[in-house]
């Protein structure tokens, strides 16, 4: 088997690419295809097929999605690797390594300053190990239980005698969530399109010494308002409508939080960003907890890297660190001045928004 790669055309190869994505990721791929591959304000994605030179059959697919990023305070164009698929029957290291190398092309050409991948498990690291690369950061899941029905049912089954136990534990969980009051800070839902004040907040926050995604209005609108799956609550899907909370002082935007509640009763905190996070961030998180309690959510999950400020807010409010959810592995040209920074001296302050596709 001799393999080669070629760039995918989102017009000519659309059907073949969608068929491959459906086989590996499910049917919801169709709805998000254009939004994801060509609607991104950072620019269109790059996708490649790896194919067998003899049979011309497609063996693997990978995509790099452009992302507006900040590295040490400078706004640069980065890329996130995703849709990494090797067809059943070809799942060995060879095609995967070729595919992984191919995703470095936009960086080598200078179209991107760097790209990063977030392998969720050890096996996903094998291509990087082969290429002599190591993880730049690790992202962990944090959990805050609000109700215990699911855990009790799982452990003991659903019985009459478990009801008092559930009631007592749920009461204890509710009492634990003390209200956080910050003077002159107003917390409210934000249901409109993101405007200039969000871009201003993004610019005003010094990101010297760290690597993070941009939160400009256009990035936020694309991510939370234009995602075809975010506007509807799918009865069978796990992704619900994004809920945005803002913290304001004298009408001025100080910070915001984004979360969604899945159909299985788990809420996921996607992002928390802004000034004065020890106060505003904690107040926002407290509001998320209160809303989720009212909506009978069983647990709130949050994801962040070790260097993310969110980590301290989460643990301060009683979130418990659970398993490592992914690693971050970055590729940058060693001769590029910002590329060098990616591998040395920068803190990867990633929340879920930087990891999710």
């Amino acid at each position, binding site marked *: *088997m001799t*393999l080669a790669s070629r760039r995918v055309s989102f017009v000519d190869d659309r059907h073949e690419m969608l068929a491959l994505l459906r086989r590996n990721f499910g049917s919801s791929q169709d709805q998000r295809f254009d939004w994801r591959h060509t609607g991104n304000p950072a620019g269109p994605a790059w996708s490649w097929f790896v194919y067998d030179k003899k049979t011309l059959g497609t063996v693997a697919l990978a995509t790099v999605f452009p992302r507006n990023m900040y590295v040490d305070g400078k706004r640069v164009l980065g890329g996130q690797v995703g849709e990494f698929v090797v067809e059943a029957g070809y799942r060995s290291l060879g095609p995967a390594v070729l595919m992984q190398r191919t995703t470095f092309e936009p960086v080598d050409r200078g179209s991107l300053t760097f790209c990063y991948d977030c392998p969720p498990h050890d*096996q996903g690291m094998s291509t990087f*190990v082969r290429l002599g690369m190591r993880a730049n950061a690790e992202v962990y899941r944090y959990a805050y239980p609000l109700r215990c029905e699911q855990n009790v049912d799982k452990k003991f089954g659903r019985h009459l005698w478990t009801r008092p136990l559930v009631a007592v534990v749920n009461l204890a969980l509710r009492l634990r969530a003390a209200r956080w009051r910050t003077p002159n800070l107003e917390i409210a839902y934000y249901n409109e399109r993101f405007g200039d004040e969000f871009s201003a907040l993004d610019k005003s926050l010094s990101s010297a010494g760290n690597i993070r995604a941009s939160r400009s209005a256009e990035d936020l609108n694309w991510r939370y308002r234009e995602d075809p799956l975010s506007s509807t609550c799918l009865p069978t899907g796990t992704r619900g409508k994004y809920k945005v909370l803002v913290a304001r002082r004298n009408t001025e935007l100080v910070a915001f939080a984004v979360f969604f509640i899945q159909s299985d009763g788990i809420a996921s905190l996607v992002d928390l960003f802004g000034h004065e996070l020890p106060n505003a961030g904690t107040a926002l998180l407290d509001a998320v907890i209160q809303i989720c309690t009212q909506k009978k959510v069983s647990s709130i999950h949050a994801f962040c890297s070790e260097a993310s400020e969110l980590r301290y807010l989460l643990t301060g409010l009683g979130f418990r660190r659970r398993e490592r959810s992914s690693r971050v592995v970055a590729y940058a040209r060693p001769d590029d001045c910002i590329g060098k920074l990616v591998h040395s001296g920068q803190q990867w302050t990633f929340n879920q928004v930087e990891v999710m596709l």
Partner: protein
Amino acid sequence: MHADQALHDQIRSFMLLTFPAAKKRAIDDDFPLIDSGIIDSLGTLDVVAFVEHSFGIEVSDDDLTPENFASIRALATFVLRKTGVPAE
């Protein structure tokens, strides 16, 4: 003992030593190492390191195909091909 058989035994010893799942199964020369889950993608890297170190060969990305790692016999054939020794 044939040189081929010695090579097979050397590879088998490595498998038994390195992969706990291999110890629980009777892995003969044709036992499917990948399909049975004994070797995954990270395990392949251990095998690559083993053959490169033990037999002084360089395993290229093109060599990282299931055919070369599918079984002890396939791996031995691959090593012989890379070292330029014809199989007996």
